[in-house]
């Protein structure tokens, strides 16, 4: 009985979300138009319309849309639970997140006062015209960014996470062998290897996959050709769920863009293009302080990357629009973070004049542009690239820089990483700890960016295939541990944090799938 109630609630929620969406109006339109068709009979109009919609692929589209909503639906909560609990059930986490947000907003505001730059200003007409003209080559602008600094860097965030404590958890009388050696000292439930073997079953030693079984020495007939054939079928069926399942074994390079678009349910129809154009005009009309932060970030990170420097212009086109996209605010229902508010000049203190700043509620940090860079490899059309990035952000990336108890949240990932290391590589962990080289200090930056900029592009995309396939970021923590396992021999020789950093400085030659497979399935438990 309870289950049914639960399902009904979910159905109601999904219907609520889809009502009034473009898909809804398309379906209505299609249903109305098909009434003219001869095969629709008045007696069984409902069934006939339904089968028409099924045959023309509209049912599949609806299915994909529902599937998408299920991904981002918050977990069912108790009837009397306040809305904060949907964002984050644990109060100490909520408090920590609020405290962190206060700090970064303060940092942003003080930078704004120091530099005398307003948070937002309307562009003069001349400047607007210039920007329209240079829209596709913003990388050639050389604004003076020397006074701007990133609002925060991953290592600042790490310090915050290290200080997290659950007041209800008494760890005072635990024996040292049971205690946690790492930096994260909160009691969250994270999966161990036996549990992960059940979840990541398609990565097993007995299952073929891209990243391993498409190696040059293995004839493509054995796996690759068949996998590509299957991929083409999945694409022709236009089935989100099937694409997601398929992605667990990796997406072929030639099909990846289409498959990801299917999994994320991102088309590139007229509405998307119009939405993007709207955002673009927002950028043209107003200049935000955040824009300078974005510029600085792109110049510091992606522009200096050996592979991604080519896409510099795209990054501005995407990120500047992203800052102005108020639909991103929807994801704060299930994000433990709350969008920062700032007051309009001259009207401080009054709640109604407090505006969300930036409009999308997301303050970029050092390295933020690296979330977009790998996607430029797959999508050319700015409006589609934008849709894909936005969807990836509201499904996954936001979890990497907000404090929450979610299993895909950065806190859980850090804890999982440390636990895996402690259980399976205790000698290494102990040694590094003794040398003052806590492993998380090195691995954190990889995980915050989901390894973007650290792995070679093709390897990164294979990793992100699995993030999409399993709808979880846990694989990122596993990879971090697997990297340490791989370089364990060299790491045992180091005697300082700097030396450990040097051993792990260059990950560009790593092959992620063999590392993951060996760590998950060949580790002796």
């Amino acid at each position, binding site marked *: 009985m309870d289950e049914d109630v639960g399902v009904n609630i979910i159905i109601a929620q999904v219907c609520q979300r889809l009502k009034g969406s473009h898909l809804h109006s398309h379906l209505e339109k299609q249903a109305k138009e098909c009434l003219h068709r001869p095969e629709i009979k008045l007696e069984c109009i409902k069934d006939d319309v339904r089968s028409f919609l099924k045959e023309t692929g509209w049912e599949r589209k609806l299915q994909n849309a529902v599937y998408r909503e299920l991904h981002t639906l918050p977990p069912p909560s108790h009837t009397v639970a306040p809305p904060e609990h949907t964002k984050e059930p644990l109060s100490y986490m909520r408090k920590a997140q609020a405290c962190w947000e206060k700090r970064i907003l303060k940092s942003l505001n003080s930078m704004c006062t120091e530099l005398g730059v307003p948070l937002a200003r309307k562009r003069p007409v001349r400047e607007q015209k210039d920007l329209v003209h240079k829209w596709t080559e913003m990388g050639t602008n050389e604004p003076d960014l020397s006074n701007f600094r990133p609002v925060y860097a991953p290592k600042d965030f790490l310090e915050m996470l290290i200080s997290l404590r659950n007041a209800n958890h008494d760890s005072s009388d635990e024996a040292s062998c049971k205690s946690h050696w790492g930096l994260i000292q909160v009691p969250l439930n994270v999966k161990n290897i036996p549990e992960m073997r059940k979840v990541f079953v398609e990565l097993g030693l007995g299952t073929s996959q891209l990243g391993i079984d498409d190696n040059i020495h293995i*004839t493509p007939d054995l796996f690759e050709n068949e996998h590509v054939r299957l991929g083409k079928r999945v694409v022709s069926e236009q089935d989100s769920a099937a694409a997601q399942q398929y992605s667990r074994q990796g997406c072929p390079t*030639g099909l990846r863009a289409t498959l990801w678009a299917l999994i994320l349910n991102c088309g590139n129809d007229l509405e998307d293009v119009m939405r993007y154009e709207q955002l673009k005009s927002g950028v043209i009309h107003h200049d935000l302080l955040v824009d300078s932060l974005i510029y600085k970030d792109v110049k510091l990170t992606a522009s*200096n990357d050996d592979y991604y420097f*080519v896409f510099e*212009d795209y990054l501005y086109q995407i990120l500047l629009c992203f800052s102005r996209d108020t639909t991103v605010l929807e994801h704060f229902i299930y994000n433990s973070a709350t969008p920062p508010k700032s007051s309009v000049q001259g009207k401080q203190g009054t709640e109604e004049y407090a505006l969300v700043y930036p409009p999308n509620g997301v303050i970029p940090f050092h390295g933020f542009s690296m979330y977009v860079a790998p996607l430029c490899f797959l999508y050319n059309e700015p409006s589609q690239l934008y849709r894909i990035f936005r969807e990836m952000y509201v499904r996954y990336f936001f979890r990497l820089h907000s404090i929450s108890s979610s299993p895909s949240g950065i806190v859980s990932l850090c804890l999982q990483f440390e636990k895996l290391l402690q259980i399976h590589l205790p000698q290494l962990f102990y040694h590094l700890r003794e040398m003052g080289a806590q492993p998380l200090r090195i691995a954190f930056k990889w995980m915050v960016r989901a390894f973007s900029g650290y792995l070679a592009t093709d390897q990164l995309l294979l990793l992100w295939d699995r993030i999409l396939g399993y709808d979880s970021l846990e694989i990122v923590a596993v990879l971090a541990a697997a990297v340490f396992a791989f370089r364990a021999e060299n790491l045992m020789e180091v005697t300082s944090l700097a030396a450990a950093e040097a051993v792990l400085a260059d990950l560009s030659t790593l092959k992620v799938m063999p590392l993951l497979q060996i760590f998950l399935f060949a580790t002796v438990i």
Partner: protein
Amino acid sequence: MSKNKTAGYRGHHSYQKRKEAEARSFIRYRCGFTNTIQDVLRQRPGWVEVKEDEEWDFNWCDVGWLRENFDHSYMEEHVRICHFRNYYELTRKNLMVKNLKRYRKTLEREVGHVEAAKCDFFPCTFELPSEYHLFVEEFKRNPKSTWIMKPVARSQGKGIFLFRKLKDIMDWKKDGSRLEEQRDEAQVESYVAQRYIENPYLIGGRKFDLRVYVLVSSYLPLKAWLYRDGFARFSNTRFSLSSIEDQYIHLTNVAVQKTAPDYDPERGCKWPMQQLRRYLTAKHGAHAVETLFRDIDNVFVHSLQSVQKVIINDKHCFELYGYDILLDQDLKPWLIEVNASPSLTPSSQQDYEMKCHLLEDTLHVVDMEGRLTGREKQVGGFDLMWNDGPVSRENSGLETLGSSCFSPNTNLGCFNDRENQLRHLKVLPGQKSA
């Protein structure tokens, strides 16, 4: 010039001497460069550098030395040198065009229109001043197109400019802003006017060209190897036809880019070929990209065939060419230029390693140590592309059995498993085992 530049002199006991040379445990080399090739030669086990007046077995010379000394040198059978005597038939722009046009006519006559069309990878080119009238005719036929003027014999982007009006050439001829030396030279020097490719394939809004390495170990019969690695060189600035004046956009040579005002030397605007191949596959699918790379193979083969009968074949000679290829938006490859002395100066650590491997593998193919059987289809990172006929890939799989599907033995932009392949060769004398 001392006459004693010969490598191995003819003497009484010449046969004896040759046997001795073979039995000699080291190979004497000369090198006219101080960059990567010098490092590679020095590190090769059993190879010893010799001084100016001494005999040599191997010479990595520059073309200047070749011009002055090749004709006066007697080379014993085992001796190798890194250029063909008249390499310029392929690399000098006006000669290459002439040879290609002639070859195309032959193909059309002897084989047919379809085969001849395969030579249309060279943009319409005229030699100036000799073909000036033909050029003007063509120019008037398409008044809206853009043309590029290139000096015949210079490299690294020097002296190149774009134009749209015939008036621009007149101005250039009389241009007082050019340096004195240039003006004098220009009277003697010829130029080529080539139709500019106005729809290049852009990545991130930037133009790029491909540098590919082809090693020719013999012209008669034609034996050519294609290196798997290479790179795409990006222009630092964004492409737009409206800025013809800005030569930095249009020229993608690293040498020119280095002087552009916003050049960032830390960055090095190159992508390895593998990255480019993957990018194109992600955008256009595997099939389109395979077709593209077949077309690129075609550029190499036909360009080499066009000079095959003209180049003085000499068993002592081999040559490593650097081909510059441009892609247009329809994924058609265009041949821009062939370099007989591709730059070996590295632009980054990664580039240095790639060039070292390239040169090491070149020496493996040249095979002074006599390790190869002659039946190899791959040596290090080189795949045998043409051996007096097309070379097919081994183990093509069941689907090619009995079918007319021919799978060429080239892997440009694919994974370079050179280390693995080199393990199959005999260890070099004096080499530490891997």
